[in-house]
């Protein structure tokens, strides 16, 4: 099967934006090439073109959910120990809506 590139650099940059990742110009070229190689690798699944979701009715079921019962968890103090920066019992992050960070 011929390996025809599906994605271009612009596509790779759009996917990176969705994935919250940043690549240098050189790296985005490399990741685009890797992605195309991986997509070609997965192209065997095109044999399933003729099948539709209705052919698998009931197959993709959710696992059972447990009852939503509150219980004691890990303390706020212990959880905050892992955070880079905290203040008054909360984790600090840059201001989300405009202005400078605290």
């Amino acid at each position, binding site marked *: 099967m011929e390996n025809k590139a599906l994605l271009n650099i612009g596509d790779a940059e759009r996917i990176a934006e969705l994935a919250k990742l940043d690549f240098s110009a050189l790296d985005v070229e490399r990741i685009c090439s890797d992605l195309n190689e991986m997509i070609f690798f997965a192209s065997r699944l095109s044999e399933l073109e003729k*099948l539709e979701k209705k052919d698998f009715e009931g197959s993709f079921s959710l696992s059972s959910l447990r009852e939503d019962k509150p219980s004691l968890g890990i303390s706020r103090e212990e959880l905050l120990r892992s955070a880079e920066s905290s203040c008054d019992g909360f984790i600090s992050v840059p201001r989300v809506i405009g202005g400078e960070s605290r």
Partner: protein
Amino acid sequence: MSDILKRTLLEHARALSAGEYSAEELARAYLSRIDEKDKEIGAFLAVAEESALNAARASDKRRAEGRSLGLLDGIPIAVKDNICAKGIATTCASKMLDGYIPPYDAAAVERLRLAGAVILGKTNMDEFGMGSSCEKSAFKLTKNPIDTSRVAGGSSGGSAAAVAASFAPCALGSDTGGSVRQPAAFCGTVGMKPTYGRVSRYGLVAFASSLDCIGVISTSVADNATVLGAISGKDARDATSSDREADFDNRLDLGVSGLRIGLPKELFSDAVSDGVKSAVMSAAEIYERLGAKVFEISMPSLDMSLPAYYLISSAEASSNLARFDGVRYGCRAEKYSDINELYIRSRSEGFGDEVKRRIMLGTFALSAGYYDKYYAKAQMAEELVRRDFERAFGECDLLLSPTSPEVAFHIGEKSGSPTNMYASDICTVPASIAGIPALSLPCGADGGMPVGLQLMGRAFSESTLYRAAYALERERGRER
């Protein structure tokens, strides 16, 4: 003392019970060996010397007072670094979690501690479980103890190498697409991926939640069954965990007479090396001699397992790893102007190349315009594979195949192309996407390197796998 480090876990348990040595002496012996030899191998990321010795002393005190907790009391065990152990750094071999100390134990670690086991430390792995060689760790390379120019396998390479190098009699790993079985095969050890849901995933850092399983790597089949029994069971904190009985180690010597063992021809293709095929077929002949019925079967959908696995696991990984954003834990970038840049820079600096590749593939597969063609089709392929296994288990009690198409390859040999590395998962991935148990055990050698044989069974049939593995192990003599 160093001779005893080649003993099995159960031999240690008997020796501790007989007072031949203490748990503290045993822990010190393993710690000393790690200190002496791990510079060459690179199996451990963190050695928990102080807490291990405290746990060993507590075990000795219990035993002296007649309150021993059972077979695992005082037994040293290593734990893969994506399984949380309270107070011990858990990094998933990633800069993203460098320095992260979990405030809780994973359910599997909890159960080991309740049984009195001594946690020696955390083992190296491919970053976030994404890799098949242990070359993708952000911190170090783990070498194969049998030939240090070769890889230990992945992603549980550190755990497999630790057991093979006598740094621990047993280790926990995790298996999403073969990450317990393949390194176990490469390092000449026994590795079990149980049925999905056997062992709670609470405290296992998620890679692909519908596929991740905590598994056991050991030097013997009986050891493996003992430890799996200890860590299995229903856990309210993991909705996918099962309450099926986990009594694996009391029927090991039932033999294989009358068992029907199928050889899926799709897993014996030209991709499998001649040396591996020969070793595996010799083992199949042993099973025939022992009274099993061995025959070839066909499972045509298995050819779609590998692409389906990589799309599904990457899609799930892209979702699971979205939590690593520099906010609540882990790596946070130093320079950023707003919250979005905090996320992007933290993630770009924290993740390695392979993790980024998988996140990108997963994001692509789930994105508008591509979802139906890739992710939805991968789900269909997964269902076809499950149905193929169901049909196969109508004719067979077990399926037998190579664990890996080749023996451990040389370090750097497959670094050039990502899909070159992915191809080494061809034999292990089908059992992962079907959710069934699969075990690897040594069955011979090729060019001096161990060959692993894989046994697969119906869901929750671990007892049958152990029984068959025990029969082969006894017939061939334990590898070490």
